[in-house]
Structures are given as structure tokens and as C-alpha cells.
């Protein structure tokens, strides 16, 4: 699949558009259908297309595995941090009103930050799961595990 010229050209054209669409779903989520979950999935789908065309090693140079571990926890921590910031500033847990002076501005800031945290977590978890599955076969070969499947 990697030597196929049509696939390479089309993928080179499509991957940036898929990732841009993911970011659009992420940050336009309060105005149109979308949000962190969908955006993370779409972004990770663009990355997986890159893996399928250019190979896992090239893709892991773009986003290293260590970055995935860090980012997948960082997304959840960002979510919790927004919640705790509400407590520190004198509200309830995950109460967005104390964050900023304006009522609407505070809510929008809270929603966008929280959705961004969800998006980062979902995207990196999907990438990590795909990486682990895709690498397993070559690890079997390296460890000389006998493949009992036809």
C-alpha cells in the first residue's frame, strides 16, 4: 500500500483537511454539532490514515509514544484543574461562573477548556490503542513467537 502513488497523493491532500475538520469540530462545538469526543476521534482518524500510508515509524516520529502517554493524562488533568479552579475561586466543583467576571464569558471559557481536555484525551487514547495493536505483529516476529494463525 505504501508504494501506491495515488494513495500517497490523495492522503497527502486529505490528512490536513481531516485534521483541520477535527479542530473545527473541537472549537466550533458550541455553535454547531460537535465537541471534544468527536473532534478527538476525527483528529486521531487523520493520524491513523497517515500510519496506514506512511508506516508506523514515520507516524511515531510525528507524535512520539511518550507524548501520547503524557497528553492522555494531561487532558483529564486539565478537566479536573478547571473544576478545582472553580472551587478555589469560591464556587462548587466544575462551577464555571467564578472563573471570569462576565457570566457568559466564564461559561464559554469553561466549556471550551473542558472540551479541549476531553478532545486531547480521546485523540491520544485512540492513537495509543491503535499503535499498540499495530505494533504487536512485528513484536511477535521479533520475539519469534510461533504464529498459529493461517
Amino acid at each position, binding site marked *: 500500500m505504501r508504494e501506491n502513488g495515488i494513495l500517497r497523493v490523495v492522503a497527502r491532500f486529505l490528512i490536513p483537511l481531516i485534521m483541520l475538520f477535527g479542530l473545527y469540530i473541537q472549537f466550533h462545538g458550541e455553535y454547531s*454539532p460537535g465537541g471534544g469526543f468527536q473532534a478527538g476521534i476525527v483528529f486521531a482518524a487523520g493520524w491513523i490514515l497517515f500510519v496506514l500510508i506512511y508506516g508506523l515509524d514515520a507516524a511515531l516520529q510525528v507524535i512520539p509514544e511518550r507524548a501520547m502517554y503524557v497528553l492522555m493524562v494531561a487532558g483529564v488533568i486539565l478537566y479536573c484543574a478547571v473544576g478545582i479552579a472553580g472551587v478555589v475561586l469560591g464556587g462548587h466543583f466544575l462551577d464555571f461562573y467564578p472563573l471570569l467576571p462576565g457570566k457568559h464569558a466564564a461559561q464559554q471559557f469553561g466549556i471550551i477548556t473542558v472540551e479541549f481536555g476531553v478532545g486531547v484525551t480521546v485523540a491520544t487514547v485512540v492513537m495509543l490503542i491503535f499503535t499498540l495493536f499495530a505494533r504487536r505483529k512485528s513484536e511477535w516476529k521479533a520475539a519469534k513467537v510461533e504464529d498459529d494463525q493461517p
Partner: protein
Amino acid sequence: MAIAIVRAKDLFAAAMLFAIYSLLSAALFAVLDAGDVALTEAAVGAGISTILVLAVLALARRYESAIDGHNLLALAVVTVTGAALIYATLDMPEFGAPDNPAQVHVGPYYVEQSYPDMGVPNMVAAVLASYRSIDTLGEAFVILTAGLAVYALLSPKPRRRKRRRRHLRRQLREHRRHRRMHKGSSS
């Protein structure tokens, strides 16, 4: 379509049928004006889960192993549960009726107050991220847990386990033969 998925012995065909099924449900949600749900179903159900299933199938066998006979207990459980669910739907309110619980409980508050409260036009985002943000936090933790579980299962380097299993099988065979001989001599 669902019956075809269950009956397919070729797991690649089943995965593809499952993706088509998800895409059809996404179209159904889009027809019902549920844009967020349709987008999620199309991205998660038809896209990512198919890719992950295919990634797993690259490691596993292609064909389902044949099971001989029928599991009558499973058939009974499925029949009773299905009958109970169909019986329960008879009590459900009429689809789209104005006095449904969905229309009179917290729904009107969200519809009327989410824009004055939040200034966010997309009501689904407002409910998900602000009114019900602890639920969404839980969902984020579910995703993180899934990632950690796959990491814990697959990150150790594989060892030559088949050899070991064959060794165990030989031991078991010898053990049985030994026992049989023992029994034969005692009787």
C-alpha cells in the same frame, strides 16, 4: 442487517457489515435532527471502532470457530429478556407526545435557560460540558481507563509462550497416561 452480522462466519465481513450498520444509524440520527449524536455515531461507530476491530483481526483468526450443538440455556435467556423488553415498550409514552417525561422534566429548563445561562447556542454542548460536566468528566476517565487497560495488556514484550503451552500439554498427556496405567494395575 443485524442478523447478517450475527450469522457471518467471516469476521472481516462482519466488521464491514457492522460499519455499514453504524453508518445507517448515523443517517437515522441525522434524519431525527440529532446532529451531535449523528456525528458521534459516524465517527466512533463507523470509523474508529471498525479500524480498531480490523487492527485486532490482523492479529487474530479470520474465521469464527464452529460451535457444535445449540446452547439452549442461552436461547432461553435471550428469549425471556427480549420478551420482557418488548413488554416494557408497551408502557412507553407515544413517540413525540407533548406530555412525555422527556418533554416535561428538565428538558424545558435547558431549552429556555441554556442561552441566558451560558450564551452558547448549541444546547447539547451546554448540557454536556456545563450542566452535566461531572458526567462528562466520568466519560473522560472511562476513555483514559480504556487506554490504560490496553497499555497494560499489550505493552510488555511478547514471550515465546506457544512452546511453553505445548510443554504443558505434553505434561498433561503424560500425567493422564500415568493415571490410566495406575488405574489399570489396581483393578
